[in-house]
Each structure stands twice: as structure tokens, then as C-alpha cells.
């Protein structure tokens, strides 16, 4: 089998523009990713880095060379240290975490239940899926205003309907906890459709064989759900968990139009605090930047946890 080998013309066979073509081939993926990277760097990462840099200064949003008192003063990590002993910020951070911790699981439970409820492939259920998805298509401003109106203590439709069955008006937006609940309700209502869709695709990806095997084994519906559906849905759950947690941490427009942060400051969450600190207080932009750094770190940690979870689920 050591057959004769044909003599080869190694040198002559390389095309003269070999280098150029190789270069072009190698640069192709970079070319593909360039537009996205350029936009993301320009409108997200570069401003973010600037924001990080701002967090080291005592300064306002705007620096005017012609006005000496607007010039930034370098303060090192003072802004961060201040955050630590700023009770207001701590409270806001805790409240935001609280919002996420309550709203996200609720959202997941609701959207998963909806996905299971609306799974059948008939026209009626398809219509219902569209209805559930519909809120996600409306701008948050309108959603907030509508819910605010529905929840009105004295003029809201909800309380009016309750009054018809002689239930005393509920102070949906006038009492701290109730308002926080109202924000959660509106947020969950708005997000449920999107997550339901993701869950639906996750559910349909689970082979019916498992359920049939389980039903032959006499497994109850509930046990099928806890022992088969949930574990097999884990990758989907991880995605939904992280995406909606990030979304929840960033809650802003909805709150502004629904409660305006009230009653008092009961529903002021992180982004609103950052925004108000930066834009409404003099010389506090550095502090606001420090707050955003904290927010970014929290979200980053979340995302990393997600990667871990998703990887271990593989």
C-alpha cells in the first residue's frame, strides 16, 4: 500500500493574491459584527465608561468651562462611600431588590400558568394568547396612565366596581404597600405575555413521550408538573428569570406614569432615584453615576449567575 507518490509542484500552486484573499476571508466575521459593535460602543458602552468615570467626581450633569463652580472636583471613591451611608439610597436599593424579588417570581408563576393554560392549539386559545400578549405591545406610558386611572381611589373604575358590591374603596395607590403591589400587578400584567410566549416554546419542546411514560406509570398531574415539566423547563426558566430580572431592575417608565414614585417615595426605585439625583439635584451627577455603577454591577452578577445556571443545566 505504500503506493507511488505523484511529484508535486508545491511552490507554483499558491495563487499570487493568496495573502489578500486570506485577509478578506479572515476579516469577514469582523465586518459582520462591526455595525452592531460600533453602535453599541457609541451609544452604550462608551457613555457607560464615561458614566463610570463621572462617579469619581463631585460634579453636576453639565460642566461649563465658563462657570467655575460647575467644574468637576476629583473625589476618588467618596461618592461610593457616601452611597453606603446614604440611608435613602440603601432604602431604594432594598426596595428595588424587593420589587424584583416579588415581581419576578410572580411574573414567572403567572406566565408559566398562562402558558400551560393557553397551550392547546385551537382558535379560541390562540386568540387568548394574543390577548395576553397585547399589553406588551402598548407603550409603558399609556399602560401606566391607564392603570393609574383604573386604580383611582375616588374615581377609578376598579373601586367603582367594588362599590357596586359594597366593598369600601381600596386605596390602591394611596397607601405604601398597596401602591407597591399595584406597580407589581401592572408590571406583571405587562410582562406576562412575553414570558408566556417563551415558556410556550419551551413547553412544546418537551417531548409528549415523557408525559405518556409518566401516565403509564400512574403519575399524578401535579407530580408530572413538578418532576417532569419543571426540571425540563429549567433552561427556559433560567432565560426568563434573568431577562425579566434585568427588566425588573430597570423598571422606570411604568412607575413614573403609574404612581410617580408615590405615595411619598414608596415606589421610587433605583432608576428613578438615579435620574432624579442626576437631573434635579445640583452637583449630584457624580453620586448618580456611582449609583449606576452599583446597578450595573448588580445586573452583571445576575447575568453571570444565569450563565452558570444555564451551563449546569446543559
Amino acid at each position, binding site marked *: 500500500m505504500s503506493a507511488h507518490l505523484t511529484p508535486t509542484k508545491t511552490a507554483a500552486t499558491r495563487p499570487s493574491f493568496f495573502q489578500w484573499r486570506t485577509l478578506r*476571508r479572515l476579516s*469577514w*466575521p469582523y465586518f*459582520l*459584527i462591526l*455595525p*452592531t*459593535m*460600533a*453602535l*453599541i*460602543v457609541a*451609544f452604550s*458602552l*462608551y*457613555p*457607560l465608561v464615561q*458614566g463610570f468615570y463621572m462617579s469619581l467626581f463631585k460634579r453636576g450633569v453639565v460642566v461649563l468651562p465658563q462657570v467655575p463652580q460647575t467644574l468637576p472636583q476629583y473625589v476618588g471613591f467618596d461618592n461610593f462611600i457616601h452611597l453606603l451611608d446614604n440611608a435613602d439610597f440603601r432604602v431604594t436599593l432594598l426596595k428595588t431588590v424587593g420589587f424584583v424579588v416579588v415581581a419576578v417570581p410572580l411574573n414567572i408563576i403567572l406566565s408559566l400558568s*398562562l402558558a400551560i*393554560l*393557553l397551550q392547546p392549539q385551537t382558535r379560541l386559545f390562540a386568540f*387568548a394568547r394574543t*390577548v*395576553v*400578549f*397585547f*399589553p*406588551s*405591545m*402598548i*407603550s409603558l*406610558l*399609556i399602560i401606566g*396612565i391607564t392603570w393609574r*386611572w*383604573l386604580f383611582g381611589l375616588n*374615581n377609578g*373604575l376598579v373601586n367603582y366596581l367594588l362599590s357596586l358590591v359594597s366593598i369600601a374603596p381600596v386605596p390602591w395607590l394611596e397607601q405604601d404597600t398597596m401602591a407597591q403591589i399595584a406597580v407589581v400587578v401592572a408590571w406583571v*400584567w405587562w410582562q406576562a405575555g412575553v414570558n408566556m*410566549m*417563551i415558556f410556550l*416554546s419551551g413547553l*412544546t419542546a418537551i417531548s409528549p413521550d415523557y408525559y405518556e411514560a409518566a401516565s403509564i406509570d400512574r403519575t399524578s398531574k401535579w407530580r408530572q408538573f413538578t418532576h417532569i415539566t419543571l426540571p425540563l423547563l429549567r*433552561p427556559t426558566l433560567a*432565560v426568563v428569570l434573568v431577562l425579566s430580572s*434585568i427588566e425588573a431592575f*430597570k423598571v422606570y*417608565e411604568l412607575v413614573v406614569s403609574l404612581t410617580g414614585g408615590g405615595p411619598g417615595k414608596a415606589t421610587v426605585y433605583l*432608576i428613578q432615584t*438615579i*435620574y432624579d439625583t*442626576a437631573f434635579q439635584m445640583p452637583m449630584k*451627577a457624580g453620586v*448618580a453615576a456611582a*449609583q449606576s455603577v452599583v446597578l*450595573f454591577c448588580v*445586573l*452583571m452578577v445576575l*447575568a453571570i449567575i444565569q450563565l452558570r445556571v*444555564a451551563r449546569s443545566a446543559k
Partner: protein
Amino acid sequence: MKNPYSPTRLVLLALVLVVFMLPPIWLFLSALKPQAEIFQWPPTLFPEHPTLVNFINTMSKARFFTFFKNSAIVSVLSALLSVTISVMAGYALAKFRFKGDTIFFLLIMSSLMVPLQIILIPVFLVLKDLGMLDTLAGVIIAPAATPTGVFLMRQYILNIPDSLLEAARLEKTPEWRILWRIIVPLSLPAIGTLLAFNLVWRWNDYLWPFLIITNQDQWTLQLAIANSIGRFGIDWPKLLSMSVLSVLPVLVVFTALQRLMMGGIMAGATKE
């Protein structure tokens, strides 16, 4: 064998329909009321004196159509741009191994975690340096790169078999032709869905247009809606009718693209 119409299911279904339909319907019906009735006590669910006057007032302003047109231009072009670059980036991340690919991916995903509200001024300065202020181009281009879009496209394109690309390369197909003739048509379900998503996102977006646009000729609908909340009060008839009018096109687009949604992309989204 399983009957989807069991009584419990139907009851739950009815509940779901009420909960999810009531607020939009309330919004819609209120828009049909004359101003005095909007805040009447006790409230009426169905208008006692239904009228289209709110809509007529809103639409009779020539400006409204300008805003509508601007919104349409912005959302369509921006969505197209966004989908285009998402497909490109998603393709690169799904099917090529190159130096820095993971870093690029992480950078793109990390921008998901940067709320625009906290970087407004730096972004504004970038926009200014690029000469995008007060132009629709700015509203179209600036928000076009979406990490979600890149992520969805990447997940979807991952499922396209490598062998198709290899077959094409064996046939000496130029790379751009592979992208245009193979990747794009095969990702159509994902592209359709992403397009629908982007249309909705851009259509409903307030912050970007607000940041970029001052000139009223370039306003989008959302700016106009926000503007009906004035210094001393809300112009309710205008707000309601504009809201309803702004939701309608979204509903139409979505219904049209819904078939694509259900099948394609979501599967891609979760296949980790």
C-alpha cells in the same frame, strides 16, 4: 384524547380574558366619550354619548399625520436596520470562530444591562458629535443595535446546519452570497419576529426620540402623547385618542406577523 375545553379551563380562560382585555377596552371606550363624561361620577363603562369627536379633533390637526408619518418612518427603517445588523452580528457569533468572539458577545450582552436613563447626557454628547441631533436618522440609527436581537438571531442561526454553509463554500460561493442567499432566507421566521418586535419597540419608544428630537416637525407619536401631559394638567381627550390611534397600527402589524412569531423564533430563544 385530552379535551382542551374542560370546565375549569374555560373558567380560567374567561378570567384571563377579562383581566387582560379590560384595561385596553376601558382605554378604548373612554376615548369614545365626550370630555365631560370621561371623568363623570359614577363612571360609565360604555359611553353614554359615544362620539368620535376626540379622534376627529386629533386627526384633524395636520401635525398628527406628520407625527404618525415620522413614527412610521422611524420604526420601519430602524427596525429594518436593527434586524439587518442583528442578522449580521448573530451570524458572525453563531457560525464563525474568530479572535475575540466571546468578548464581543459579552460586550454586546452587557449593554443589555445599561439603562438609557442613566447615560443620557454622555449619549447626547455622542449624538451631537455625530451630527445626529434633530434628525430622524439619529432616531433610526442610535437605538438600532439591540442585544436581544443579536442574541435571538444567534440562537436561531446556530440551528442552521453547518453543512449548508460548507456545501456553499465547496461551490465557491462568495461569503456575502452565503449570507444573503442562505442565511437570510433560512432565518426568515426569526427575522420576521424580530422585525415585529423591533417595530413595536421603536414605535413605542419615547426616550430616544425625546433625547434626539426637539424640532416638532420630527416628532414621533409618543412625543405627541407625552406632550398632552402639560404643566398644569392632562389633555385627556387628546391623550386617549392618540393612545388608541398609536396602539392600532401595532395591533395590525402584530396580527399580521403573528404566525411567524409562534413558530420560529421563540424556539430559538430558549435552545440553550
